[in-house]
Every structure is written in structure tokens, then in C-alpha cells.
């Protein structure tokens, strides 16, 4: 009850209000040594440890110093570090005050000595959760020039890190998924690709579309278009994502819409037939800028930009490949039917022209 009344009194007291409770644990791992700091909001420190000796709802430097031994012990007990299963005893070596944007934090300097080189680091955190389950420990782990951020919570009070290596895998995997996701939701990119691919199983003869007689010409055509598109958008995606080349987004989005119009129109009035791969390449360059703007919103991690970029591009290719593998066998199978040649290709392309014209209007004129 006493603790509870104290908590109530604190409400009107200090800053650090208007946010849920976060503590910031920054650790650097080098060999057998772990060093860093643990920043705890003064308010949270008071709730956890009762430092305000004179109960005046302010924490003074004197009060903090007087409580040092007690605090150091409590913190060392609340935070456990283990390297490959062996405990790394933790010491608090200094105490400072840090003014963050949302209020004052106590900054505890930490040192831990591990019995062996840290391969796998297990962090166990039990600070404040019993009194405030909304408290979160934000951990930034630095090792070998790479940093990784994760969140400790009552449902995840233990975290395992593999310093230096795991962040790479997580980053790669996350960005591949983003790449796949963004091509699947990028209807304009998908329609452009499909518009160029649908005729791959057909031949233009005497002003008519006829089914291609064998598999090989179709495969070559698909291969040509997909490879050209992939190469082109990879180039511009890379250039734009690394900020070596930039184009205004309104121009890019309008040009993408225009490319879809042209690709679909080309199925109705084929001007470009054997060299659709060239269309794929030229317009693929512009589509790459479109992907780059999405990647720009996601953000590339500072430490592993290239890895994330490669991963994102890989994801886009995988997503693209999945679409091709689903659509093209169906297209090949149906290529002789009127349904495919007139329905899907002609009427479908006409519909795509209309849709893409609307996009063009929205993006170029309205936007």
C-alpha cells in the first residue's frame, strides 16, 4: 500500500510523463568484454527503487548518490548477461544524468566481463515489469560495426543475440519479404510485365495472333522479357536507392502508367513484336525508380545498406518469378483458344489500357 500511494504521488511530480515507460540499454560487445549504458527515466527509477528520500516528489543528485550502492546492486540483479550459457558478472561503474527529449534519465555506465569470447549473448531483463507491465527495455547491441535493436518486454524478458552475424540474416530476410510484397501489391508493375508476357506464347502472322508451335520460342520470349525487365529495374533501383540518381516521383509514376498503356496498346496494334524485350528494358529502367521510392519509405539500415538493397531486389525478382511461373504455363496451355487470343489478350489488353490511362491522368494531370 505504501508503495502504491507513493506511485500516486509521483503522478503530479516529475516529467517523463505523457509517454509509456521505456529504458534504453546500449551494449557493445568486443571479445570477452561487454560495455555500455542503461538509461532509466528518473520517474521509473523512483517507482522501482524509491530514491526520493524526503518524499518531495523530486529526485535530487544527492538523493541519487545516497542510493548508489542500493541501485547498483538492484540493477545488477535485474539485468543478466550470459555468453554461451556462462554468466558475465555485471558492474555499474558510473552514474550520470541524461536529458532526453521526453525528460531526465539516469545514465548508468555498465561493464561486464565474460569468461569466454561472446558468440551468443543472452540478455535477461526483469526491471520494473512487476510494477509497470507496459515498461519496455529498448536494447541496442553493437558489435563489429553492426548494430541491432530489439525490445525487451514482460512477454519477452529474454533475448538472444548473435553479435555481428544475426542482424545480417534478419535484415536480409526482412528485405526479401518486403521486395516480394511490394511487387505483388504493385499492380502497375505486374500489369506491365503481364502485358509484355501474354503475347510470348503467340506469333504474329498476317495481322493475326496465332499460337506459337513449340515451347522453345515461347520460353525464349519469356526469358528475354523477364531478364531485360529485371536487369533494367535492378540497375535503376540500385542507382536510386544509393542516391546516385534521382527523378521526381510524379514524373516516375506518370511514366510508369504510360509504360503500361504502351505495353498493352502494343498487344492491340503490335508495333514491337520480336523486340518486346527491348521495351521491357527501356521501361524497366523507369519501373526501377518506382521500386526505389518504396524502398526509400521503408528505409535502408545504415549499417547494411547494400545487403538490404540486394535482399529487396532479390525479393522483387522472386515475387516476379512466382507470377511468371503461375501465369505462363496457363498461357501456354490456353494459347490456341479464342478465349486466350481474343479474350485475355485483346479484351484484357484493352481493359489494361483504360485502367492505365486513368492512372496516367491521376498521376500526371491531377498530381
Amino acid at each position, binding site marked *: 500500500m505504501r508503495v502504491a500511494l507513493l506511485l500516486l504521488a509521483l*503522478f503530479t511530480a516529475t516529467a517523463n510523463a505523457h509517454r509509456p*515507460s521505456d529504458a534504453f540499454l546500449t551494449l557493445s560487445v568486443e571479445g570477452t568484454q561487454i560495455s555500455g549504458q542503461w538509461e532509466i527515466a528518473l520517474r521509473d527509477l523512483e517507482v522501482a527503487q524509491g530514491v526520493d528520500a524526503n518524499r518531495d516528489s523530486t529526485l535530487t543528485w544527492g538523493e541519487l548518490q545516497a542510493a548508489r550502492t542500493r541501485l547498483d546492486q538492484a540493477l545488477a540483479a535485474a539485468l543478466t548477461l550470459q555468453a554461451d550459457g556462462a554468466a558475465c558478472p555485471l558492474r555499474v561503474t558510473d552514474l550520470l544524468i541524461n536529458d532526453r527529449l*521526453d525528460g531526465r534519465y539516469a545514465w548508468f555506465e555498465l561493464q561486464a566481463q565474460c569468461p569466454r569470447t561472446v558468440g551468443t549473448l543472452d540478455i535477461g531483463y526483469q526491471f520494473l515489469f512487476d510494477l509497470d507491465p507496459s515498461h519496455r527495455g529498448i536494447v541496442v547491441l553493437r558489435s563489429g560495426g553492426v548494430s541491432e535493436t530489439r525490445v525487451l518486454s514482460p512477454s519477452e524478458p529474454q533475448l538472444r543475440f548473435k553479435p555481428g552475424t544475426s542482424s545480417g540474416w534478419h535484415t536480409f530476410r526482412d528485405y526479401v519479404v518486403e521486395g516480394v510484397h511490394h511487387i505483388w501489391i504493385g499492380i502497375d508493375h505486374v500489369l506491365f510485365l503481364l502485358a509484355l508476357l501474354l503475347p510470348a506464347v503467340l506469333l504474329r502472322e498476317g495481322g493475326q495472333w496465332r499460337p506459337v508451335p513449340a515451347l522453345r520460342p515461347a520460353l525464349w520470349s519469356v526469358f528475354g522479357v523477364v531478364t531485360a525487365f529485371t536487369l533494367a529495374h535492378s540497375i535503376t533501383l540500385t542507382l536510386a536507392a544509393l542516391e546516385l540518381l534521382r527523378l521526381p516521383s510524379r514524373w516516375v509514376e506518370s511514366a510508369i502508367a504510360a509504360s503500361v498503356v504502351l505495353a498493352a496498346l502494343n498487344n492491340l496494334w503490335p508495333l514491337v513484336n520480336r523486340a518486346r524485350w527491348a521495351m521491357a528494358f527501356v521501361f524497366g529502367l523507369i519501373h526501377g525508380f518506382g521500386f526505389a521510392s518504396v524502398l526509400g519509405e521503408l528505409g535502408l539500415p545504415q549499417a547494411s545498406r547494400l545487403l538490404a538493397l540486394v535482399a529487396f531486389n532479390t525479393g522483387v525478382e522472386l515475387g516476379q518469378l512466382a507470377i511468371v511461373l503461375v501465369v505462363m504455363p496457363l498461357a501456354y496451355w490456353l494459347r490456341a483458344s479464342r478465349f486466350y487470343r481474343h479474350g485475355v489478350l485483346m479484351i484484357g489488353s484493352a481493359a489494361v489500357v483504360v485502367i492505365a490511362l486513368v492512372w496516367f491522368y*491521376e498521376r500526371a494531370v491531377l*498530381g
Partner: protein
Amino acid sequence: MLAQRFIEQSRQEGDPRGLGYAQGVLSPWWTLEQPPLAVLLMRATIRQSRHDFNGALADLKILLEQAPDDAQAWLTQATVLRVLGRYPEAAQSCGQLQRLASPFVSELCRLAVAGLNGELAASYTAMRTLAGHTQPPGLQAWWQSELADMAERLNQPAEAEAHYQNGLDADPEDHYLRTAYADLLLSQKRAGEALALVKDHDRIDALRLRHALALKALDDNRFAPLDALIRDGFDSARRRGETLHLREEALYTLDAIGDAQRALRLAQRNWSVQHEPADALLLVRAAHSAKQAAAAKPALDWMLSSRLQDARIASVQP
């Protein structure tokens, strides 16, 4: 109960840690499917505050099955359903208050929902006739804020302003009312008055945000430090994996940062969580600014099917 005090203080002070402390006090029961009834109501309230609307409704359903005479629970349920835009069900919950709460409260609840669900003008007229002036300050302010919202949607901003002022006179600590009033002033390009209204209330997140919006509109150089704090707040929420500030972040991204595309995405995500007129307005405004008219469709369709009238939304349409 201690947890109840923490919850109330959290609301008054705009302090989310209070909800954490309440949860801490309730932790022996927190993970139970069916904790004691008193705990259920508080857990529902905490979940509602954290925008876990489905969680809150689940708790309220269990609670009301066992305690069908709990007026507060019916009122909380009506509020959550209303935020979700589920008006017929909200009206049913309000209906239960007829036998359990004062006529004023039950009528206020009922008319507020009816005003969102196709009967704006009639509800406004009826609500004005309620005997609000004899109510305690908190209820008066609530009454005036409902009236103000309706007046705004009826395109009567002067009336709305009068209601807001009456409400603040009754209860100067009603943050929701103050926030809505500030939004009205900002939308009328009266940033100076909005500034005066909110500048001493920075401890409340929503008001601090309007403070920044006003400073930005006035091109005041005190905007920069406040902007840094607010953005840091959104970043820290993102780090924690929290999404309860989507509407605020969408609004800020649209009006202070000026990134219409990002604001639209945030407004869309917000729309998937809640359906209040303010959420619809935000989605429509963001879609308009981002030049993606089609993105406004979900909100417009919903307005049509709910028969929601809102002059502010109508005025955004080209």
C-alpha cells in the same frame, strides 16, 4: 480500487504510465480469461485506452453476461462500438442505459449514436433540449462536446464554437473537448486562437500536437523543438510496436510534416482500426492531398452505408 485511481489519473494527466501501473496492480488476474468482474471492467477500460477495441469488447461481453445491470459497462461498450462505427449495436447498448442510468445519460448516449447514423439534424435539435445545465461539470462538458460535433457536421461552425466554449467553461480539464475545439480553429485558419487555447497543456499528447500545428501554421520558430519532441514520440511508439497513435501521426504527417503519401498510408492503417467521423475526414483529406482520390473510397462508402452526415468531409470533395 487503486487500479481505478491509476486509470482516472492517467486520463486526467494524459499519462500512459498510469495504465501500466493499473495493469501492474491487476497483474495477478490480468492473464485470466475470466477475472473477477471488477477487474474485467478495468481491463476493458485499459484495453480501450490502448485502442485494443476487440479486446475491450470481449471483456465487456463476458462482464455483461454476468452483470447485466452494470451501467458503466454498457456505456463503455456503447463508446467502443461507436468508435468502431458499429452504430446499431452501439444504440442497443445505449438502450440498456434507460433502465440503469439517469435519463440524461441514456438520452445523451442514444442521441449521439443516432446523430451519427442518419438522424443528425433531429438528434441535434433533441440533444439541445436536454437538461444539461444542471448536470455535473464532467457531464455538461460531454454534452456540449457532442453538440459541438453535431454542429460542425451540420456546417454550423459558429454554433459549434459556442458549444465548445460552454463545455470548457463547465470543465476546463476536458482534453477531448479542448482538442476538438483546437481542430475547429485550425481548420478555420485561426491558428493564433488555437495556440492560445492549447499552449499551456503540453503534458497532454493530443494538445501538444495541436500546439505544434498552430506554431507551424503561424510559422513560429518555436515549432522546431516541439516538432522534434513529437517526432521522437512517434519513433519511440514505433520502436515499442505500438499503433495507438495512428490518427495523430497521420494528422501530424499531413499538416505539420506535409508528406501526403505517408499521411495517406497512416490514415489508411488508422481507418482499418477505427471508424469515427474524424478518421473518415482524415482519410479523405489525406487521399485528396496525395492525389489519390480512389483511396478515399472506403470512408465514403462507409459514410453512405451508415448514413453519416459530415459537412467537413463533403467540403473536401473536389
